[in-house]
């Protein structure tokens, strides 16, 4: 690792020691994030022999896609993958459909109860929300939602909705109010102005919010495990088979959990940075 940081930090050769320190620190922190992911990928692709190989080298020897494909063919894996997608899809749809209008209202209107609403949203952040799945099992059994993907999607929406409302508020505030008013002047109704002017401008930010809602649902373990028995999501499935599955299956499961959300976040990284306000000014 030190050799890697050195080569990265001295392209010109006369960079001051301060500069060198900064870049080696940055490289070390990047390695801290990336190396473990690389290693679990090796574990997932190394199969049974790879797991018991001793000592390990950290180099990709004996790596092939077969162990990972074998894992995908294991009974229940593909179904749970689809269940995860379904629950995440419901979460995305509901949290945007319910959260975006609230975000718009918060951004554009002054109304009685605005502060109470914001308090309600902030309150959800102070609670370990997944725990709400415990009493909901009882209600969901009565309603026929227990052990369904819809039920899991509903509880994941509780996790994602407050986030969606707060973030879309910021997005709509970023759309200049003057553009909307100009549209009214030119004879658009409020709804027309919204769909023709505001919505297209806000779309990238809303897509980024949707991706984040997807990731919240995709990664959630506790509620999904409590609310399902046969229709498990990928996280819930992995949690229940964890203790009896061989090591390389666990690593394959870990890699499969990581890949989709990392790819998704990568795809919308620019908009995510923009809505968090961390992009370069």
């Amino acid at each position, binding site marked *: 690792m030190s050799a890697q940081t050195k080569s990265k930090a001295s392209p010109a050769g006369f960079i001051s020691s301060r500069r060198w320190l900064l870049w080696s*620190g*940055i490289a070390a922190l*990047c390695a801290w*994030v990336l190396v*473990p992911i690389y*290693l679990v990928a*090796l574990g997932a692709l190394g199969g049974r022999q790879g*797991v018991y*190989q*001793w*000592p*390990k080298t950290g180099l990709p020897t004996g790596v092939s896609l077969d162990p990972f494909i074998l894992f995908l063919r294991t009974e229940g894996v593909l179904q749970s993958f689809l269940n995860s997608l379904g629950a995440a899809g419901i979460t995305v749809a*509901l949290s945007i*459909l*319910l959260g975006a*209008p*609230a975000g*718009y209202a*918060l951004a554009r*209107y002054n109304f009685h*109860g*605005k502060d109470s609403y914001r308090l*309600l*949203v*902030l309150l959800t952040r*102070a*609670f*370990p*929300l997944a*725990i*709400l799945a*415990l*009493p*909901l099992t*009882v*209600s969901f059994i009565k309603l026929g939602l227990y052990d369904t993907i819809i039920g899991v999607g509903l509880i994941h929406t*509780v996790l994602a*909705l*407050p986030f969606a*409302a*707060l973030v879309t508020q910021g997005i709509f505030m970023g759309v200049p109010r003057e553009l909307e008013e100009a549209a009214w002047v030119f004879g658009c109704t*409020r709804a027309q102005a919204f769909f023709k002017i505001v919505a297209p401008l806000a779309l990238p930010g809303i897509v980024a919010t949707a991706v984040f809602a997807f*990731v919240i649902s*995709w990664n*959630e373990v*506790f509620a999904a*495990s409590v609310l399902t028995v046969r229709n498990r999501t990928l*996280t819930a499935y992995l949690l229940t088979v964890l203790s009896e599955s061989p*090591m390389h299956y666990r690593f394959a499961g*870990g890699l499969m*959990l*990581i890949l989709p*959300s990392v790819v*998704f*976040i990568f795809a919308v*990284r*620019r908009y995510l940075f923009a809505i*968090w306000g*961390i992009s*370069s000014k």
Partner: protein
Amino acid sequence: MTKNRSWIPYLLILPSVAFLALLFIVPLLQTIWLAFSDNGVPSPANAQRMMADINFARSIKNTFLLTIAVVPVQLAIALVMGTMVAKVGRGRETILWVWTIPLGISDLAAGLVWLSILQNSGYFNSLLLGLGILERQASWLSYQTPVALFFAIAVAEIWRGTAIVMVIIVAGLNQVPREFKEAAEIFGAGPWTRFWRITLPLIRPALQSALILRTVLAFEVFAVVYALGGRNFPVLVGEAYNWQNQNQNYGVAAAYAVLIMIISLAATLIYLKAIKVDPERLP
């Protein structure tokens, strides 16, 4: 702002209010009732049963120790990341993206990632062997090595959870006007003084949000523990899960849930009091 047609904002927030009322407020009250009732009558039986459980004290101790170990380290790393990235021109976005990768990684996956490193024939032992520190495979994750297991879980949590703190801190740092720092520099303040006297006070709202969010999440720690140590390291949420799924006892599970809620709420209130923030600047 717009005063006519004042029903519009209510129409817009109504769906989310109804949803949160049904799936947040109602289950919250149900959990509290479930925890403090027995066969439909108010009773402390569940709470008593929870407290008599052999894992109760250990799970409280473990959860608190983890939180105390993990949250300050995450805050420190996030501050280091924020100060570093502020000095970078080109390549800033790429570095930020690499550092936010763990945001997409679940606690379960993070546990499995570190399992691949820390298991007996894993990369950590291989490294120690290569350095001549170890002679044969050592086990770090068994019930016989509680201290090593604690550190393994803490490392996995720090690895996974620092990204969200970093995002909030960097956003906060972005809002600090450059002129403040320049003025301090002109008046002779060194980097440390500038950091403690200028930067930290100005990013208070970000610090507060980050601390509240991370502490609440740390009290919820569960899957990373389960992936690394199975049931060798009891934590509060893990106990709630076991009482619900293995023992099928919803009452005791709810008692654990209420306990976690009380602890989280208390921590939130402490942060709100300790780090005073101008209410206008709350997120």
